[in-house]
C-alpha cells in the first residue's frame, strides 16, 4: 500500500489549527475540515484566558490568520464527512462542502451584503445575545473572511446580490462532494457545552438573569453584545452580586448531567469572576463550588489572587435551588454551608459553570471513522498514548477525548501531529507544490518608481472617500510614476493588472491603499513577487478599516485623511529596500535531555522518523520518576510499559544513550547546536551537533520534613506505600491507614498543586481495599482534584468505604507519637475535631523542581524558569512546549507537575514542534528583523536584557571592540532592543527609523 503525504484534520478550533500548522510546517499537505463557516472554535469566543488573563482574540487571531493563508493547508469550511475508507497510511474521505451561497473566491469580506440584509438572524457566536443578518460572518475577525447566507433565515429578497459589487452572491450555488486522499487523520471536533434543561433547578432558560458561562464570556468580551460591559440581560443593569455555580452538568450522578469532572470550570469561573470585577468594580462575585480544582501550572496562585486582590468569595456548597423575584428579576439562592446551616441569599445574576460534553456529533464521527467512544461518549484512547484512538492512523486531540483546557489541547494537537509524523515522515514534501517564481529584479540604488493602487472596495471606501481625488493626488507625490484605482484591488483580475503595470511602468515600489495589511498584505506581496519584485517593496495604506469605515459621516475629512495616509505610505515607500531572508542550514539531529518516560518517548519518536537522537540522562539508568510507579489510576501497567520503552531505546540504532551524563556546554542556536557531554563512570567527553533540544529533565518527589517523616518508621510516602503494596504487601498489622494530602504542595514554599497526588492516594486506597477490604482508610485532604474521568475513581473509593475528611489549610492535621502508636489530630469540616489512632501514616508528597540543576541548564540554553523553578514555556496558552528561544522545547515534569499520560503527550508534542524545524533542509529567518550597526554600537548590553528571545549577545569586533550582534535565526523583529538603544545602533528592517521618520514628516 502506498502512503499518502497528506493529513486530514477534522475540526478547526485551536487544536485543529495547531495540528494543521505543525504538519503543514513539516511538509505534509493538510486538509482542514470545519463544519462551521470559520475557524477558531470556542477560543475565539473567549474574552480572556486563565491564568494569565491574556486577551484570547489577541493571541489566537495571528494563529488563525497563519492557518488561513498557509501554503500547505487546504481550508474547507461548512463541510460534512460522508464516508471514510482505507487504513493507516492511505485513507479516502468523502466530504460534502455545503454551499455558502456566496462564491468564496469572489467574496472580499467587505460586509456590504450583511449591512443591507433586511433579515435578522440569531448570532450564535454571541450565544444568542445579539442579532445578526442572515448574510453574515461569524465574527469580525473571522478566518476565512467569507460571508455566507443562512438559508434558514434568508427570505430570498435578492438585496445582497444587488449590492455586491464583487458579484459573489450566487443563490443557486450547489453543494459539492469531493474525495480526499490522506495518510492519517486527526479528529479535533472539540466539545459542546452542557445546556441545563429548563425544568432544571437552575432555572436556565426560565430566568433571564441565569446565563451559562459561555454566554457570560461573550458578555465580558469587548467585541461582545455589550461591548465588554457587565450587564444583566433582563434590564441592562450592572449586577452587583453575581453568583457563579460550579459543576453544572459535571460530577452529577443524578443522570441529568455527567458523572465526570469537566476539568476546566473551576478555572474559567475564577477567571470570569476576576474579569467581571475588573470590567466593573461594582461586581462582587461569589463562587459556589465543591472542590476547587486548580491543578494546573500557576492555577492555585490565580485562585489566591482572585480571592485576595479581586475579593472573589468562595463558598463550598452546591446550591439546592434558585428562585426568581418576579419584580426585580433578582435570584434567590438556597444552599447549605459547611456548618450545615441552610442559607438563602439574593443575587442579581447567576452564571452557570456548565460542563463540557462530547460534541453532539461524536457518535456520527465515531461511526464514520470507525473508532470507539468511551462510556461517556468521548473518543476512547490508548492508556499510554492519549491521542491514539482505537483505530491505527486516526488520532484524537483536545476535548474530544476528555474535557481539557487550551494548553492541554494545544499540547495534544501537537502530540497528534507528532504521531502522524511517525507514520508519514517519509512522505514529507511529496504533495507540496513549490511555486516557481521569476528571479527578483535588481532595484538597489535605483531611484524609486512608485505605483499606487487605490481601492474603492465596492462602496466601502468609494462611498465615503473621494477615491478619484485621492488617485489624482497620489500622482502628484514625489517618485510616484503611476496611480490607478480599482473596484476591488484584491480581486484576481486586479492582481493581473498590478503585474502589468509593474512591467509597463518599471515600478520598483508598489502601494495599495485599501483595507488592512494584517489580512491582505501577504496577497499583494505575493503578486508583486510574481511580477519579479522583492516582497518587501510593498506598502499598504489602510483607508478602509481605519478611515472610510470610521468616518462615514465626514466624507471630506475622510478624503483628507486618506490623502495623508497615502502620502505617508509614499514617503515610507521611497525609503524601503528589498529584504533578503537569510537561510540557515539545519543539522537533522536531536538532543533529548532526560531519560525518563518523557525523554524516552521523545527519543523514540525522533528515532522512528530516522532522526539521529542523543539521549542524555544524568542518572545511571533510564526510567526516571516512573521507576517508582507501578500502575496508573486507570490501571495501566507502568513497569511493563517502562521496560518495553527501555528495550526499544537500547535496540534503536538512531539513539545514542549517555548515562551518568553531565552537560558541559551547549553552543549555537536553532538548527545548529553543538553540545559536549561528560558521561559514564569515567566521565568520557563526547561532542555532537544537533538541530533541536528537548528538555525532559523531570522533577523530584518532595522529601517531607513535616509529620515525623524520617523519624517514625510508620510514616511513609505514597510512593513507598505503592512499592509495598505492589511487592510483598506487608501491611497485615496496619489496620488503620491515614493518608495526608498536599504535603509539600500548595504551601508558602511550594505554592502550586502537584496534580498527581490525589490520584495516587485514591489509586493506593483502592488497591488496599481490593487486597484487604477490612482495612480502614482515611484520606485527609484540602480539595480532591480528580479531574476528568478520574472523578469516577474518587466515587469508587468512597463506595469502597474509603473515608475522606476535608481540613482547612490554616488548620493542618497534627501528628503525635506515643511510644509506638501514632495519632493524627484533625479539625475536619462537617465532622469536627477527631483524634485518629493510626497504624500507618501515608504522606502524599508533592513534586518539586530541582532548582540548581534547572537554573544551570536554563542558563546554558538561555531559557527561563518560573517562580517555582519549573521551566517557563514561551506562552502559557498557545506555545506550551516551546521556549521563547527557538529550537528548544520542554516536556514532562520539567514543565510542571503532571501525569504520565500528559508527559507522553508533551513528549510527542515537543517532537512535532521540533520536526517543523528538522523536516527542513534550511530554515528561513524572519525578514523584518533587527540588525546592529557595529560602528554605532557602544556595547552597553542593554538590548540583551530587553530581548525576550535571547537573540542578542556581545562579541568582540576586531574593528569596533565590544558590540552587540543579533542572531538572525532567533530575532522576531519586535524592536524592543531598538526602542531603547541610545546610540540608535539597532534598526529593524521594514520598520527602520528612516522609514518611520519619513512617515512622521509626511504630515500634510
Amino acid at each position, binding site marked *: 500500500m502506498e502512503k499518502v503525504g497528506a493529513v486530514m484534520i477534522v475540526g478547526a478550533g485551536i487544536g485543529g489549527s495547531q495540528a494543521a500548522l505543525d504538519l503543514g510546517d513539516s511538509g505534509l499537505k493538510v486538509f482542514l475540515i470545519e463544519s462551521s463557516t470559520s475557524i477558531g472554535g470556542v477560543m475565539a469566543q473567549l474574552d480572556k484566558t486563565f491564568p*494569565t*488573563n*491574556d*486577551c*484570547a*482574540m*489577541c*493571541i489566537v*487571531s*495571528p494563529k488563525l490568520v497563519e492557518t488561513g493563508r498557509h501554503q500547505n493547508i487546504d481550508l474547507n469550511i461548512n463541510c460534512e464527512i460522508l464516508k471514510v475508507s482505507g487504513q493507516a497510511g492511505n485513507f479516502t474521505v468523502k466530504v460534502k462542502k455545503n454551499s455558502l451561497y456566496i462564491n468564496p473566491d469572489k467574496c472580499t469580506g467587505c*460586509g456590504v451584503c450583511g449591512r443591507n440584509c433586511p433579515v435578522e438572524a440569531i448570532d450564535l457566536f454571541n450565544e444568542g445575545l445579539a442579532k445578526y443578518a442572515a448574510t453574515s460572518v461569524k465574527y*469580525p*475577525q473571522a478566518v476565512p473572511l467569507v460571508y455566507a447566507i443562512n438559508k434558514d433565515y434568508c427570505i430570498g429578497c435578492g438585496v445582497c446580490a444587488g449590492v455586491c459589487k464583487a458579484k459573489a452572491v450566487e443563490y443557486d450555488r450547489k453543494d459539492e462532494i469531493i474525495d480526499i486522499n490522506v495518510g492519517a487523520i486527526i479528529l479535533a471536533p472539540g466539545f459542546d457545552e452542557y445546556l441545563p434543561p429548563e425544568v432544571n433547578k437552575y432555572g436556565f432558560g426560565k430566568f433571564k438573569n441565569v446565563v451559562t458561562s459561555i454566554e457570560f464570556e461573550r458578555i465580558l468580551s*469587548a*467585541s461582545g453584545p455589550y*461591548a*465588554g460591559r457587565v450587564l444583566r440581560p433582563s434590564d441592562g443593569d450592572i449586577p452587583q452580586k453575581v453568583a457563579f455555580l460550579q459543576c453544572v452538568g459535571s460530577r452529577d450522578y443524578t443522570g441529568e448531567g455527567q458523572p465526570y469532572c469537566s476539568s476546566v470550570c473551576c478555572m474559567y469561573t475564577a477567571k470570569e469572576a476576576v474579569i467581571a470585577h475588573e470590567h466593573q468594580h461594582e461586581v462582587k462575585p461569589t463562587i459556589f463550588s465543591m472542590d476547587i480544582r486548580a491543578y494546573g501550572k500557576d492555577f492555585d496562585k490565580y485562585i489566591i489572587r482572585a480571592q485576595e486582590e479581586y475579593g472573589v468569595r468562595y463558598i463550598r456548597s452546591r446550591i439546592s435551588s434558585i428562585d426568581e423575584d418576579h419584580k426585580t428579576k433578582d435570584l434567590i439562592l438556597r444552599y447549605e454551608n459547611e456548618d450545615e446551616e441552610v442559607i438563602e441569599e439574593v443575587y442579581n445574576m447567576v452564571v452557570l459553570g456548565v460542563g463540557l460534553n462530547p460534541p453532539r456529533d461524536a457518535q456520527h464521527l465515531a461511526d464514520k471513522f470507525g473508532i470507539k467512544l468511551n462510556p461517556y461518549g468521548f473518543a476512547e484512547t490508548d492508556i499510554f498514548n492519549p491521542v491514539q484512538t482505537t483505530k491505527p492512523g486516526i488520532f484524537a486531540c483536545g476535548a474530544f477525548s476528555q474535557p481539557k483546557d487550551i494548553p492541554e489541547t494545544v499540547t495534544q494537537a501537537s502530540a497528534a501531529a507528532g504521531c502522524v509524523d511517525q507514520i508519514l515522515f517519509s512522505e514529507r514534501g511529496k504533495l507540496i507544490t513549490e511555486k516557481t517564481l521569476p528571479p527578483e529584479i535588481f532595484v538597489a540604488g535605483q531611484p524609486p518608481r512608485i505605483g499606487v493602487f487605490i481601492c474603492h472596495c465596492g462602496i466601502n471606501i468609494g462611498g465615503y472617500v473621494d477615491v478619484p481625488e485621492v488617485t489624482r493626488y497620489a500622482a502628484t507625490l514625489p517618485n510616484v510614476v503611476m496611480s490607478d484605482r480599482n473596484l476591488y484591488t484584491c480581486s484576481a483580475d486586479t492582481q493581473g493588472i498590478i503585474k502589468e503595470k509593474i512591467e509597463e511602468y518599471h515600478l520598483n515600489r508598489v502601494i495599495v491603499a485599501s483595507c*488592512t*495589511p*494584517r489580512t491582505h498584505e501577504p496577497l499583494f506581496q505575493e503578486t508583486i513577487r510574481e511580477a519579479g519584485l522583492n516582497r518587501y517593496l510593498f506598502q499598504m495604506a*489602510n483607508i*478602509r*478599516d*481605519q*478611515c472610510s*469605515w*470610521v*468616518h*462615514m*459621516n*465626514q466624507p471630506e*475629512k*475622510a478624503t483628507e*485623511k486618506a490623502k495623508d*495616509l497615502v502620502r*505617508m505610505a509614499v514617503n515610507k515607500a521611497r525609503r524601503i529596500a528589498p529584504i533578503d531572508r537569510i537561510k540557515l542550514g539545519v543539522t537533522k539531529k536531536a538532543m533529548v535531555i532526560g531519560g525518563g518516560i518523557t525523554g524516552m518517548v521523545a527519543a523514540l519518536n525522533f528515532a522512528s522518523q530516522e532522526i539521529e537522537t542523543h539521549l542524555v540522562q544524568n542518572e545511571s539508568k533510564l526510567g526516571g520518576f516512573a521507576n517508582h510507579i507501578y500502575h496508573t489510576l486507570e490501571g495501566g501497567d507502568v513497569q511493563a510499559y517502562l521496560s518495553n520503552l527501555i528495550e526499544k531505546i537500547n535496540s534503536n540504532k538512531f539513539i545514542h544513550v549517555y548515562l551518568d551524563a553531565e552537560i558541559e556546554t551547549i553552543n549555537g542556536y536553532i538548527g545548529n547546536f553543538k553540545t559536549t557531554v561528560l558521561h559514564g563512570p569515567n566521565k568520557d567527553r563526547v561532542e555532537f551537533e544537533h538541530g533541536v533540544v528537548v528538555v525532559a529533565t523531570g522533577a523530584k518527589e518532595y522529601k517531607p520534613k513535616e509529620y515525623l517523616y524520617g523519624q517514625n518508621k510508620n510514616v511513609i510516602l505514597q510512593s513507598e506505600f505503592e512499592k509495598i503494596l505492589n511487592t510483598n504487601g506487608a501491611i497485615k498489622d496496619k489496620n488503620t491507614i491515614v493518608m495526608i494530602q498536599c504535603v509539600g504542595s500548595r504551601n508558602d514554599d511550594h505554592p502550586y498543586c502537584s496534580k498527581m497526588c490525589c490520584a495516587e492516594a485514591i489509586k493506593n486506597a483502592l488497591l488496599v481495599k481490593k487486597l484487604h477490604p477490612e482495612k480502614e482508610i482515611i484520606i485527609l485532604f484540602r480539595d480532591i482534584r480528580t479531574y476528568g474521568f478520574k472523578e469516577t475513581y474518587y466515587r469508587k473509593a468512597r463506595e469502597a468505604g474509603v473515608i475522606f475528611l476535608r481540613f482547612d489549610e490554616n488548620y493542618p492535621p497534627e501528628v503525635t507519637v506515643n511510644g509506638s502508636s501514632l495519632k493524627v489530630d484533625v479539625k475536619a469540616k462537617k465532622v469536627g475535631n477527631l483524634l485518629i489512632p493510626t497504624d500507618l501514616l501515608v504522606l502524599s508528597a508533592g513534586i518539586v523542581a530541582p532548582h540548581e540543576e534547572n537554573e544551570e541548564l536554563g542558563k546554558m540554553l538561555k531559557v527561563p524558569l518560573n517562580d517555582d523553578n519549573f521551566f517557563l514555556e*514561551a*506562552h502559557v496558552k498557545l506555545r506550551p512546549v516551546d521556549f*521563547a528561544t527557538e529550537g528548544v522545547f520542554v516536556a514532562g515534569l520539567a514543565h510542571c507537575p503532571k501525569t504520565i499520560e500528559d508527559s507522553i503527550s508533551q513528549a510527542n508534542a515537543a517532537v512535532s514542534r521540533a520536526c517543523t524545524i528538522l523536516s527542513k533542509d534550511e530554515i528561513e529567518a524572519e525578514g*523584518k528583523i533587527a540588525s546592529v550597526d557595529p560602528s554605532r554600537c557602544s556595547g552597553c548590553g542593554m538590548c540583551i536584557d*530587553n530581548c*525576550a528571545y535571547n537573540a542578542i549577545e556581545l562579541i568582540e569586533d576586531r574593528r569596533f571592540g565590544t558590540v552587540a550582534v543579533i542572531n538572525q535565526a532567533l530575532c*522576531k523583529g*519586535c*524592536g*524592543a532592543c*531598538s*526602542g*531603547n538603544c541610545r546610540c*540608535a545602533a539597532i534598526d*529593524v528592517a*521594514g*520598520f527602520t*527609523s528612516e522609514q518611520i*521618520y519619513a*512617515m*512622521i*514628516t509626511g*504630515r*500634510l
Partner: protein
Amino acid sequence: MTEQAIEKQTESEKWEPKIIAFLCNWCSYAGADLAGVSRIQYPPNIRIVRVPCSGRINAYFIIKSLTDGWDGVVVSGCHPGDCHYISGNLVARRRFAILKELLEFFGIEPGRVNFMWASAAEGERFAVLIRKATEIVKKLGPNKKFEKKW
C-alpha cells in the same frame, strides 16, 4: 463678548488638531481595524503609523512628531501580558513613563503625548480613547512650542 473674541473662539473651535498614532501591529492596530469593521465612528484627526510592537517606539519618534508639528501623539500597545513579543510593551512602558515625566518637566503639556493600551478585541475602547485623546489635544490648541523661526 466682543465680536473679535467671538470670531477668535469660533476660529479655535474650527481648528482641528493633527494627531499621529503609533500602533503596535498585533493588538492596537488590530483593535483599530476592529473599530472599523464594527463601524464605530471616531474623529478623523489621527494618522496611524504601524509598528511591530510598542517596544519599537523610540523616544526619538515621539519627540520628532512634536518637533515636526503634529499637534498630538498617541502611542498604543498591547495590554501588559498580551504582548505578541512577550515583553516588548513592558520594556516600552518604562521608557514611556520616563519620557512622559520628562516632557512634562520641560513644560510640554501633559496631554500632548498620550500612551494607551488597546487589545485586538477592544474596537470600542480604541475609539473611545482616540475620541478622548482628540478632545484633550484640541483643548490644548496647536502645538507651537517646537516651531522653528524661519
